[in-house]
């Protein structure tokens, strides 16, 4: 390809991307509106929700070179805007910290939550950059549609063997407001439980502030890589 052509393509990508992102935003806005309007009748099923969220993310990464390259700042921004609203992150952190959560001060809780989020983003930023080449297959839901908490199972197929990825979701209170993820299972290993046992070792040895210090330290080391 000639140099001017490459420049043109780069220019188009640069100008079209914000357009695309905003149009996706508008689309989701409309979607959200239609859900809130349809209220009771049109509640989205949890497996449908996971399917939609996965596809949206895949599209997003596909059209964003800096996400594809695993750029941390951009990834953090996307996680904040697109994933965090769908998580009950407070519940995840509380559960990962365990019984000590209740005795933690509000400041400690905020600190734990922020650092835990950073830890997760750094861990999974690499994974997010690879989602475009994968096929996500959400399995049909089992259990009753009235359940307040459900398990959605999915399988991700790439080049190698399929990866099992399961989600635990809770119904958010109110009509038509949907679902929030509160735990994640990769290849049979629950995320929250795994962190809980790691965290409890720290808490037993050095208390809540010790855990916070270790998290801060770990995030700093990970940032250097």
């Amino acid at each position, binding site marked *: 390809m000639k140099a001017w052509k490459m420049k043109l393509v780069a220019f188009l990508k640069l100008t079209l991307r914000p357009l695309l992102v905003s149009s996706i935003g508008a689309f989701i806005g409309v979607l959200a509106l239609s859900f809130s309007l349809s209220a009771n009748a049109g509640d989205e099923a949890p497996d449908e929700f996971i399917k939609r969220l996965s596809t949206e993310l895949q599209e997003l990464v596909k059209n964003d070179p800096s996400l594809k390259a695993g750029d941390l700042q951009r990834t953090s921004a996307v996680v904040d805007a697109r994933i965090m609203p769908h998580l009950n992150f407070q519940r995840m952190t509380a559960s990962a910290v365990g019984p000590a959560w209740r005795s933690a001060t509000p400041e400690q809780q905020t600190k734990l939550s922020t650092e835990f989020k950073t830890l997760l983003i750094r*861990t999974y930023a690499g994974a997010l950059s690879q989602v475009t080449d994968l096929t996500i297959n959400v399995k049909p839901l089992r259990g009753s549609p009235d359940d307040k908490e459900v398990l959605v199972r999915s399988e991700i197929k790439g080049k190698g063997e399929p990866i099992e990825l399961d989600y635990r979701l809770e119904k958010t209170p109110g009509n038509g407001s949907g679902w929030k993820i509160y735990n994640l*299972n990769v290849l049979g290993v*629950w995320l929250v*439980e795994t962190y809980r*046992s790691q965290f409890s070792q720290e808490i037993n040895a050095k208390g809540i502030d010790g855990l916070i210090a270790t998290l801060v330290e770990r995030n700093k080391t990970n940032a250097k*890589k």
Partner: protein
Amino acid sequence: MAKKHDLTRLGLLLGALLFSGCATSIDANPKDPWEPMNRQVFKINDSVDKAVVKPVAVAYKDYTPDLAQKGINNFFGNLRDVWSTVNSALQLKPTQTVEMTGRVIVNTTVGVLGFIDVATPLKLEKHKEDFGKTLGYWGMPSGPYLVLPFFGPSTLRDASGFVVDAKLNPTYHDITNVPLRNTLYVINAIDIRKGLLSVEDSLNAIAFDNYSFIRDAYLQRRLYEIYDGNPPDTEDSE
């Protein structure tokens, strides 16, 4: 002769385990009563890995043509598939057994002794099974967590399964040429270690204590596999 020797070694290993069972620490994980010994073995494995196994795997990954690596991975994968097929049958999974048999036949013939994986694009999916899982399927509890010298995370049940895997896997058993068989063992090990290189980086980013992290992940993963993705619900939320 060789078998007798192996049995003696196994006996010694089990003896050592039972003995060290007396020395448990106070805040032990109930699934890991042999933690002090396990941590020792873990440490030794780790240094052996750092000194020898990992450098070899990295060199293999960096200096072998990708196509060759892929072929070798497929070749050993096909050998593992044979044993997985036997175990699928032992776990009374008819569809999976048929699928896996088809896989092995297609890959061994059309795929030239397994070097090319033609079965996966044909939707004949790979299902990994081993004798430890078969024992679990038939209701044998996992027993205490156990770190094996060199081979790493296991449980008492999975370790006994592992002995059966090694002894009865027809593919290795039939090779009477010892140097060839040993070479196959070594390449197999390097191939497996290479596959773990990428996991290792994220492990170091996540875990505070690699030992307990690997232990918890291993135990959860095995339970999940044995129940084919539907383990009994043990999650105690909050």
